[in-house]
């Protein structure tokens, strides 16, 4: 019997009530929301419930199995900690956006049909856009609009896939889809855009560095990992994911290495880590799928920790560029240590949580004899130490002294970072008692993590990567951090958008001007002129012989002509003349 309240509704409805509370009560309320959601997560038995009939569709808000549970678990945990991190923020909209975002992510993970999935999927974007806008700068405004546009396109692709899927199968149930026809390809690409696949990835390093410092923790958690979940549900064992994941795991490292903005470095490293998960999904064995979900779990923790520690640096110094930072270790030792714990976790040092999950994916790759993928992932593991594990703490807290002297981060930030740092290490040391209990897929053999050989090989890989870093730095070969940006695929729509604008500005406005010249100032003016002058000219033409016959002098004729012109301009002909001209016109019409 299921007596629990859907955790997504606790967060979504709870988000609406946030403005009603003030002061300490508000703080207590906001901490209670994820705690209450977590309590109900613990109460949820596996099964399918919370179903509603909408027209011909059955909406399933609670498909609870081990795969969705592990994601609900980490999503609520991170929401709780992110609230602590954000306590100093006095902006209800930001909290609302955060809870909306979290509620939708949980709703999406628990969705048992494609329509419910799609609704939450799209609402995720709203939460994210609000969190980017919460930074309140011109650049974040631009980034938010680009984020929205890209995700609307992705959402439409997904929606068209779902519609076609329903047309073909007559069902909107969300289970294994598999790549076989157009609808599945569209759904696949829709998921892939949120997953930041190569070429579709540019929204991520574009938007995340522009988000508010607390908001980016939500963003780094929900969108990409939600997509990882969706891929794991719909396309496990899809071979193309191996190559996509390999590309994701490798190419961002090169970008991250030459990037100056430390939050952008972390954004690229996020893609690199999601690449490991995508490879895990592509292999599709129980070990690899467990590895992918475990890696999602661990990655959410250490990535949040890294974003929190550089967020604390921004909060205290107002700076984020590697060129402007350095030597902060003395001012912010606690933040520095947390950052290094996050760095050690992402680099997969033994006894940190990254090692627990990354090893599973690497082992699964080797067991499946995907040699090229395995070598690429090994390369990515070694590189991860370099471009983020050492780079971020080194340039922020050590390196040369930037002369910045600030206070340590506020106490709430330190508590939040401390909690995640503890989880990173605790899971790293006791994976059997913690993370491995949550894994979704049953496996005949327990995974042996802490073997001597395993620790030795990983240790050697990392120490020699660190050696390479040190030697490159000593010999001045390490790329110096310079004030610059690096263009990425978003160039095509950022510059392309401008080209599109100026092309249509010139062409369409050109046609407009030309039409104006021909029709308005040309033809219409002539017609107008003819209407004004035509009758007078016609009458002068007819009357001049008559005047000559009557014997009017040229002076008298000139006066009469002038009068006719005046009358014509005013349209004030005597009735006799008007009637005469009308008869003439009717006569012409009658004969022709």
């Amino acid at each position, binding site marked *: 019997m299921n007596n629990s309240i859907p955790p997504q509704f606790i967060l979504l409805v709870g988000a609406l009530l946030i403005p009603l509370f003030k002061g300490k009560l508000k703080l207590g309320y906001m901490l209670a929301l994820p705690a209450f959601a977590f309590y109900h997560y613990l109460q949820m038995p596996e099964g399918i419930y919370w179903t509603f009939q909408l027209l011909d569709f059955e909406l399933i808000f609670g498909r609870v199995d081990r795969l969705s549970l592990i994601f609900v678990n980490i999503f609520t945990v991170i929401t709780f900690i992110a609230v602590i991190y954000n306590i100093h923020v006095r902006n209800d909209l930001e909290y609302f956006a955060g809870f909306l975002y979290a509620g939708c992510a949980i709703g999406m993970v628990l969705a048992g049909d494609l329509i419910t999935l799609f609704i939450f999927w799209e609402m995720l974007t709203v939460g994210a856009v609000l969190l980017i806008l919460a930074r309140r700068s011109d650049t974040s405004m631009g980034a938010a609009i680009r984020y929205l546009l890209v995700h609307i396109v992705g959402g439409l692709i997904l929606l068209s896939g779902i519609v076609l899927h329903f047309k073909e199968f007559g069902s909107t149930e969300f289970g294994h889809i598999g790549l076989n026809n157009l609808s599945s390809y569209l759904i696949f690409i829709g998921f892939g855009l949120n997953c930041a696949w190569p070429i579709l990835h540019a929204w991520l390093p574009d938007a995340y560095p522009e988000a508010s410092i607390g908001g980016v923790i939500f963003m780094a958690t929900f969108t990409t990992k939600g997509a990882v979940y969706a891929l794991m549900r719909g396309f496990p064992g899809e071979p193309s994911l191996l190559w996509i994941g390999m590309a994701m795991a490798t190419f961002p490292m*090169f970008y991250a290495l030459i990037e100056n903005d430390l939050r952008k470095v972390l954004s690229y490293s996020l893609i690199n880590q999601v690449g490991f998960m995508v490879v895990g999904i592509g292999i599709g064995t129980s070990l690899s799928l467990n590895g992918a979900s475990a890696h999602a779990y661990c990655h959410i923790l250490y990535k949040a920790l890294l974003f929190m520690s550089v967020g604390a640096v921004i909060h205290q110094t107002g700076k984020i560029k590697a*060129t402007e930072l350095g030597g902060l270790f003395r001012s912010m030792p606690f933040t520095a240590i947390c950052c290094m714990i996050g760095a050690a976790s992402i680099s997969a040092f033994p006894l940190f949580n990254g090692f627990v999950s990354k090893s599973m994916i690497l082992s699964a790759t080797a067991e499946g004899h995907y040699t090229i993928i395995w070598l690429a992932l*090994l390369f990515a593991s070694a*590189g991860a130490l370099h471009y983020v594990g050492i780079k971020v703490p080194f340039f922020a807290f050590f390196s040369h002294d930037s002369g910045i002297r600030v206070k340590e981060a506020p106490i709430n930030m330190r508590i939040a970072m401390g909690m995640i740092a503890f989880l990173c290490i605790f899971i790293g040391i006791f994976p059997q008692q913690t993370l491995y209990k949550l894994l979704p897929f049953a496996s005949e053999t327990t995974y042996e993590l802490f073997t001597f050989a395993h620790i030795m090989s990983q240790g050697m890989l990392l120490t020699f990567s660190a050696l390479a870093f040190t030697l490159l730095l000593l010999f001045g070969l*390490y*790329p110096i951090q310079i004030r610059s940006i690096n263009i990425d695929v978003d160039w095509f729509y950022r510059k392309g958008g401008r080209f599109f604008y100026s092309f249509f500005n010139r062409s369409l406005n050109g046609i407009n001007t030309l039409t104006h010249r021909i029709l308005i100032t040309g033809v219409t003016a002539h017609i107008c002129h003819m209407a004004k002058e035509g009758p007078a000219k016609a009458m002068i033409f007819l009357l001049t012989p008559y005047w000559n016959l009557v014997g009017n002098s040229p002076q008298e004729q000139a006066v009469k002509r002038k009068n006719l012109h005046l009358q014509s301009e005013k349209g004030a002909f005597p009735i006799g003349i008007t009637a005469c001209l009308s008869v003439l016109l009717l006569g012409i019409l009658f004969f022709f």
Partner: protein
Amino acid sequence: MNQSNSPQKPQKIRIILGSLFLLCGCTFLLDFLFLSDAFDKHAVYQWENWPGFYAIFGFVACLLLVLISKYILRPLVKRDEDYYE
């Protein structure tokens, strides 16, 4: 060595460098233990059994990573900070 990366305290730096080199040497030597039958690497690929495979792989991988991004990628993609404005 370029100015922006220069260390602050040579003494401390020397200790850190020394311990890193020592660690590298130790792990490299320990890897030869696996040549004996007492230790098993559970290797899937035979090259995993070569002593120092992971060391050399990690070192070369990082060299390649840094040099490619510095000398190939950066000249291609680097722009001024106000490029999009």
